[in-house]
């Protein structure tokens, strides 16, 4: 009897255990957001997920920020067809751009580097506003952008993306993935794109966007062994990109080096090898060692009319990182060593600017987190560079949650870099401007290194209005240049002057952001940005040319409920740009002058995606649907070898509306 009761008891108990398990089975699946903002990270970092990347027309990293408030994307200019980005009103040379934490867009690749990473390779992008971490280097001034590529161990076996647009651009992405064993996996990514037809919508005799061909291949291997704590990545990459632009009538085989027709070719070949080894101590998950090494060779051969520009950069980068704790995980630290070697062969017409740069540095970064509402990261590094000298780089980030769903952040830091004045400003070769470097005593093209301090505060708050999620926030950042390699387009339309800053130069940026879920699955994202970027030029103090003082971004996204794997997704983006200071052109005859300021304008993009199943989806969209075009794209277009020619002043889209369609196919 007693035994029977016990048995009954056991059965009852096991039932209750079972029912508990059933309860646990109820899963709440949270929808992935396009842009994730953390309320617990110390730095002001937002993460763009692969979902957000699918919103834009395509195609490469430079084009993936169009729906992002932190980064301003300019339309692609006529000359290069690449979109330039700005953060806090400063161009990409002032950002640290890394790929899986290895500096990627720097030196020779500064102008076009972002367009050399296809969008379909990207897993996520982390954008940090302000000073940033000291771990990867001393160069970042206004922010850091880190791209994570798809990881071989959790990628799908096969992915295909095809794209075509009315501006005659075609893209094909084929991606293969294979698990070699339970610890090894490999991916092979092949990207090709081409623009095959000549477009001249504004009938000025010049192409609105360049003809181009690119082949880009990445083969990577990942090793992961959870028992031993060893992880590793090995990457091999080859890229070849060819662009041709200029007059429609230009024939590169006949007209190169002549004044028959104005034309330009930019040919780039790049090879990368990188390795990473990481070790996590098995009984101490908070302690690890990482060792990264990267070699790359970047060769650009180009001419812009009669201006010749060739640059080749061989780089080696090495970074040894040790992570651990002091007493407990409330006090963490990261320390290590960097080594960088850059060999440049650079030729501007007949001038040889070849040089070798190298630096060694040591860094230490301390992180305090009270596990509740406050954290700080205090970092510093010392570097010895053959041109920049011996110097210290301090950085500080703080975060405080004063109340629920609110976060206040503060950051401050110093950055120092050598400006690659020709590589960074090479669009100016497409003009009749005379290049003059007014200083001779510095170690970088005669100029001194650029040094700037950046300070920022930000606040974000999440709340509910009418029972829907809302978020509002603002931030203010200031960059103060102690020295700058000033690029002066304010003196004369026939000159570009480079000199060390005399006087003051600063960039203030203010951003207000408001996001709201209007109705279920319909999300609105808005941002207003104010920039005040002033530099003392020889002729006086001006706003930095081609920078709008006021900008507005609006983004609406709607998606239907997922039904048997089927779904519709709609996306609409509005970018409004206020008037911009234009380079000084009053030295030209009246017909070849620009006013002091450009008009304001808006660009609208929209896209519709139809998901047929987890395997197959199709998308169509339009860019610049309002068909806004810069009225006069090129000064002196009728006499491209005359004194007034300038194809570098692009403040608005040159090409009007553009429509595209594409498909994505994957095997899971």
């Amino acid at each position: 009897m007693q035994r029977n009761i016990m048995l009954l008891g056991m059965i009852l108990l096991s039932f209750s255990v079972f029912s508990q398990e059933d309860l646990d089975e109820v899963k709440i699946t949270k929808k992935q957001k396009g842009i994730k903002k953390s309320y617990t990270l110390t730095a002001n970092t937002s993460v763009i997920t692969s979902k957000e990347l699918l919103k834009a027309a395509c195609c490469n990293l430079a084009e993936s920020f169009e729906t992002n408030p932190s980064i301003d994307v300019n339309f692609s200019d006529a000359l290069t067809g690449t979109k330039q980005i700005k953060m806090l009103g400063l161009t990409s040379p002032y950002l640290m751009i890394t790929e899986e934490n290895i500096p990627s867009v720097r030196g020779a690749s500064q102008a076009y580097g972002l367009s050399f990473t296809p969008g379909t390779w990207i897993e996520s992008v982390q954008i940090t506003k302000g000073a940033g971490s000291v771990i990867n280097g001393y160069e970042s001034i206004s922010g850091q952008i880190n791209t994570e590529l798809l990881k071989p161990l959790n990628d799908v076996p096969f992915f295909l993306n095809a794209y075509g647009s009315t501006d005659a651009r075609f893209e094909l992405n084929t991606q293969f993935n294979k698990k070699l064993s339970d610890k090894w996996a490999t991916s092979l990514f092949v990207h090709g794109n081409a623009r095959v037809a000549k477009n001249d919508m504004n009938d000025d005799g010049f192409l609105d966007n360049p003809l181009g061909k690119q082949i880009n291949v990445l083969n990577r291997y990942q090793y992961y062994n959870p028992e031993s704590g060893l992880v590793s990545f090995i990457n091999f990459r080859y890229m070849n990109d060819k662009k041709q632009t200029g007059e429609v009538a230009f024939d590169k085989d006949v007209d190169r080096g002549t004044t028959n027709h104005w034309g330009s070719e930019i040919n780039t070949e790049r090879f990368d090898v990188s390795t990473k080894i990481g070790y996590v101590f098995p009984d101490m998950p908070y302690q690890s060692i990482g060792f990264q090494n990267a070699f790359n060779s970047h060769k650009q051969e180009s001419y812009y009319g009669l201006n010749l520009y060739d640059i080749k950069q061989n780089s080696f980068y090495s970074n040894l990182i040790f992570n651990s704790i002091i007493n407990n995980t409330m006090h963490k630290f990261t320390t290590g060593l960097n080594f960088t070697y850059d060999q440049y062969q650079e030729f501007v017409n007949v001038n040889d600017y070849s040089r070798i740069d190298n630096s060694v540095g040591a860094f230490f970064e301390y992180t305090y987190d009270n596990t509740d509402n406050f954290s700080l990261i205090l970092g510093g590094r010392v570097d010895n560079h053959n041109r920049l000298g011996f110097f210290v780089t301090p950085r500080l980030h703080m975060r405080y949650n004063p109340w629920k769903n609110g976060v206040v952040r503060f950051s401050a830091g110093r950055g120092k870099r050598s400006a690659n004045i020709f590589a960074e400003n090479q669009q100016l070769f497409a003009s009749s401007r005379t290049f003059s470097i007014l200083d001779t005593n510095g170690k970088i093209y005669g100029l001194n290194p650029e040094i700037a301090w950046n300070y920022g505060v930000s606040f974000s708050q999440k709340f509910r209005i009418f029972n829907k999620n809302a978020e509002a926030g603002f931030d203010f950042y200031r960059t103060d240049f102690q020295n700058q390699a000033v690029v002066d387009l304010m003196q004369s339309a026939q000159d570009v002057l480079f000199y060390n800053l005399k006087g003051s130069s600063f960039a203030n940026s203010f951003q207000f952001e408001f996001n709201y879920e209007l109705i279920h699955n319909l999300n609105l994202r808005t941002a207003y940005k104010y920039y005040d970027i002033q530099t003392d030029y020889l002729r006086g103090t001006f706003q930095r040319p081609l920078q709008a003082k006021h900008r507005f971004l609006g983004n609406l996204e709607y998606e239907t409920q997922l039904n048997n794997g089927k779904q519709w997704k709609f996306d609409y983006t509005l970018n409004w740009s206020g008037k911009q200071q234009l380079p000084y052109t009053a030295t030209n005859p009246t017909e070849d002058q620009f006013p002091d300021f450009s008009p304001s304008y808006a660009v609208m993009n929209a896209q519709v995606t139809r998901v047929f199943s987890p395997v197959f989806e199709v998308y169509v969209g339009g860019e610049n649907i309002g068909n806004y075009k810069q009225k006069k794209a090129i000064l002196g277009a009728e006499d491209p070898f005359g004194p007034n020619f300038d194809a570098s002043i692009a403040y608005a889209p040159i090409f009007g509306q553009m429509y595209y369609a594409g498909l994505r196919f994957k095997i899971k």
Partner: protein
Amino acid sequence: MRNLILIAIMSVLGFTAQAQKKNKNLKYTTEVNGNCEQCKKRIEKAAYAVPGIKTANWDISSHQLTVILNEEKTSPKDLNAAIAKAGHDTKEIKATQTDYDNLHSCCKYDREL
């Protein structure tokens, strides 16, 4: 003489006890009673306040507190005592009624009697 032998034996024993290596990175898991995000913060804070606790994580759904501790500085018992002192019952040591009563209302978990 006998005392001397005793002392000798004791000291040898003591030495062997000393020689038994104390783990500087002992992974230890215990069950701690609590309800919410606020409890999580309090429990982890109490754990970190114990010298020798290197990392602490309390899982809200499973109620498991996982730590890595340095046995040269502390012991699982010290940890349990510190958590109980903060008002949270552990599998090993229960909190006093006063400490429990001091908890915020959202953290007043159901006590096993």
